């Protein structure tokens, strides 16, 4: 404390430690947020269901989704990454999860919406197991905070069954 530079150094060090403390406190309080979100998804139609040239099944469909993610946002949330996964079981894999659609929500005001979209990513199987398969749709989300660790969650939504035979583009 004898020179101005020493005092400045001390002030900067204490300020940095306290900054870490308040960020940790903000992150800690996030754990008490119990979100209650609503979501609904419906397969409007199967656009294409075929077998690719390299032998794997591929499905493209149109989905109608509505969701309300506002309860996931706290004051310490930077953005929420949400994606819809198709989950099903095959002989070789007990669980297959394929992402069909994803979205980044950066503001709480834009967290509640409805869309009718074709799937961003096709449902491609490791093999040819999709004919007549019962597929469950699960909504997953990753909450990315401003400070702290990422929080993950998921919610199962409706199921649907794929057709028994390949279709051509309608």
């Amino acid at each position, binding site marked *: *404390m*004898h020179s*101005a530079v020493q*005092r*400045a150094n*001390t*002030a900067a060090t*204490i*300020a940095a430690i*306290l*900054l870490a*403390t*308040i960020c940790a*406190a*903000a992150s800690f*309080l996030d754990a008490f947020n119990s979100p209650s979100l609503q979501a609904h998804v419906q397969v409007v139609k199967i656009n294409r269901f075929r077998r690719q040239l390299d032998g794997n099944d591929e499905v493209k469909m149109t989905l109608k989704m509505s969701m309300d993610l506002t309860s996931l946002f*706290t*004051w*310490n949330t930077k953005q929420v990454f949400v994606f819809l996964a198709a989950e099903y079981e095959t002989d070789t894999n007990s669980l297959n999860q394929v992402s069909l659609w994803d979205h980044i929500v950066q503001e709480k005001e834009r967290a509640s919406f409805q869309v009718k979209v074709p799937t961003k990513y096709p449902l491609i199987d490791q093999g040819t197991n999709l004919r007549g398969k019962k597929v469950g749709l699960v909504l997953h989300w990753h909450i990315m905070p*401003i*400070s702290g660790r990422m929080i993950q969650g998921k919610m199962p939504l409706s199921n649907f069954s794929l057709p028994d035979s390949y279709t051509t583009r309608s």
Partner: protein
Amino acid sequence: MDWQGQKHAEMLMQIFLVFSAVAAFGAGYLMRDFRLMMLIYAGGVVLTALVTVPNWPYFNRHPLKWLDPSEAEKHPKPQVSNITSSSSSKKKASKNK
């Protein structure tokens, strides 16, 4: 600054910074705005630096009384006494044995 001033400055620094942190967190939590918390905290840190880092006259109200140079000549530094020098030579002699 003098010694009293240094102690005072350090105490003020700690109090100001902790208060800034608590006020910033409280305001941010109540207004649900992370950016507000950061702004208040930054303002508090700058205010603390302005108050405690420069050498304000307020911190120099108990100045040390350094000895006047003319006084110092009247009281010369004490010489190394004979006792200590002989004991050190005794030690040297014992080492050589």
